[in-house]
């Protein structure tokens, strides 16, 4: 007590600041860092959730390296990223760009685009799952069949299934990206556009020389945000393929779903933890890469 009394006001302030900061730090450490650390430890062990944990060294990682399913899943995960991120970026920009210029029913249209973002992913995935079914219940195939066109196997196909699962996921994330883009567009000072108008510049030049360069921070944010989202895709895939999770023939299985299955239906916690560590490293790498690009922008 007396030690505290001898402190200067500045030092007391620091003590109090640390005291308040300690609570979230402790909480965060307990629910985030401690389990994360444990996951790293378990990845070197063998554990079925019931018995003893036994040390197995690097064997979980060796198994992962030699597992053809893992490499398939690895490719799928990046397929979600490489298809999903640019497609959703372009679509959301086009929508935001035009929506920004629309005055007629602006609020209503914006609500329509935002609605899927607020819808439960589970409900949405199930509705789309039924859309994709073959005749007689699938909406798309019923339409095709009534027009005399052969049916398309959307989900029961190794080539079509991944884009089919991705489509509603892109749609669901669109609303959020549109809002961010519109905020970015509004933040560009009107004087640039006025100057361009006076100079008599065409819309394409305005778009490529003014709008897009000034939107770069917004674009980087959306790319980082949606990349992490697509790398962690799970609920859409799981709900659209519950009977054969990540199927057919692992064609739609992302890394997170593989982790889930290894942990909670095979109860192979060590192997699942090793996969989690790999996912962690991928996310870290992608985020660092994108932060590096963002930094390059500032200099």
């Amino acid at each position, binding site marked *: 007590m007396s030690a505290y009394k001898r402190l200067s006001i500045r030092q007391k302030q620091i003590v109090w600041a640390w005291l308040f900061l300690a609570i979230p730090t402790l909480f965060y450490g307990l629910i985030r860092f401690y389990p994360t650390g444990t996951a790293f430890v378990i990845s070197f062990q063998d554990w*079925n*959730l*019931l*018995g*003893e944990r036994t040390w197995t060294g690097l064997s979980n990682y060796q198994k992962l390296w030699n597992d053809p399913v893992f490499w398939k899943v690895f490719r799928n995960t990046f397929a979600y990223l490489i298809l999903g991120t640019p497609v959703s970026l372009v679509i959301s920009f086009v929508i935001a760009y035009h929506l920004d210029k629309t005055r007629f029913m602006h609020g209503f249209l914006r609500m329509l685009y935002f609605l899927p973002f607020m819808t439960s992913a589970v409900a949405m995935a199930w509705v789309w*799952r*039924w859309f994709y*079914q*073959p*005749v*007689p*219940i699938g909406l798309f195939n019923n339409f095709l*069949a009534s027009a*005399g066109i*052969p*049916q398309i*196997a959307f*989900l*029961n*196909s*190794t080539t079509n299934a991944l884009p089919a699962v991705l489509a509603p996921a892109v749609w669901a994330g669109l609303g959020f990206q549109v809002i961010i883009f519109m905020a970015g567009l509004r933040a560009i000072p009107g004087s640039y556009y006025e100057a361009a108008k006076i100079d008599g510049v065409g819309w394409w030049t305005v778009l490529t020389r003014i709008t897009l360069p000034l939107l770069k921070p917004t674009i980087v944010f959306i790319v980082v945000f949606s990349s992490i989202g697509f790398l962690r895709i799970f609920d859409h895939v799981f709900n659209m393929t519950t*009977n*054969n999770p990540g*199927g*057919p*023939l692992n064609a739609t299985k992302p890394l997170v779903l593989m982790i889930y*299955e290894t942990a*909670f*239906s*095979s*109860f192979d916690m060590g192997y699942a933890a090793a996969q989690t560590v790999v996912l962690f490293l991928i996310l870290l790498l992608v985020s660092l890469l994108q932060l590096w690009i963002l930094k390059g922008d500032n200099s």
Partner: protein
Amino acid sequence: MSRYMKRMALSGLTALATLFGSSAMAVEIEYWQYFFDARVDAMEQLIEKFEEANPDITVKMTHFPYADYRTKVAAAIPAGEGPDVVQLFYGWLNDYIEAGLIQPLPKDAFDPAVIDAEFFPMVQAMKRDGSYYALPTAVRSLALFYNTRLFEEAGIENPPATLDELVETAKKLAKVDGAGNLTQVGITTGMTAQDHHWWREVLVRQFGGDPYSDDYKTVNYTGDAGLDALNFYVGLEKDHKVTQSGFMDEPQAAFKGGRAGMHIDGSFRIGSLNKVRGLKWGVAELPAGPDGTKSNYSSYWVNGITTKAEGEKYDAAVKFLQYLTSDEAMQLWLDVVGELPAKPSVGLIEENANDPTFGPFIKGLEYANTTKFANESAQRQAMVDMVARIDIEGQDPAESLAAAAAEEQKVLDEYYKK
């Protein structure tokens, strides 16, 4: 400070004393199961009857959502908490024994020879080194559901009794639209549902094989029998065009929707089919094989005594488990939950065996097999992929069968190597 501590300790002691004082008269044991409405309801009734007959024992039931069940059990028992009698899926038995969660049933109360004689034969999968570790109250088996309206419409009088009749019946039931798309299937298929059991334990045996050797540790369906069984199964879709895998998303959905003539499923489906308005259905035994072989697959949940139960709690747990495996409990379970009795002495009494709904399932138990799964979902996945490779990628069935066998063997080896 210290006076306060003393008072705390004193009051703690008094509380303990009262606790022990009452426990001398009544033992309380805990029972755990996963949450399923009818099961909880049935168990409540059983506990009430058991407590009436044994006034010195009280049973406290706790239930959890299925998703948390295993984790909770695993965390509680080693810590000396949780259940004295626990429910588990038969496929988890090895894991539970290895982890030291359950103990063998005492031979005086549960004589292995008596159990061998009294229970349906597939219950012997619960025996390790001569003693039983857990026993079921109820079991499940497969049967052929058929839509009586569609049967009438197609002029079919009886459900098929053999696989050949199954194909012929299905042909009469299937409907296609102008473009050749199936709008009604003769029989539902889908390895993701119950078909992997039907293929593994029924079709392979009916075509003259034995799906596993070495106590389910070695895959044994790669021979002609396995290939014939696989060709028959995929032939339903490819050659006879009476079905489509994944038709209407899920087999049971197609049957409930009245768009499927026949559907192979477990006894646990009865309850939900009863709730479908306007659906008229019947049940028949699974069709016999080309040489008349009958087979079935049975799965069940069992109850075991945990390693936590000691002393008088152990004695009470034994009594409770004896009651749970009694004829009375089995009949109650059938009436409330709709799951089949695990003993012929209850199942095969006139009233149950001739019941139009339960009868075919109960008859199936007499010749049912129980797969000792190492990892059911991974082993199912091998079957799912086997058919998908033929369906989607056009792979040769023999090649696909060999690949599936290798995949499943890998799962088994990994599990048993420990």
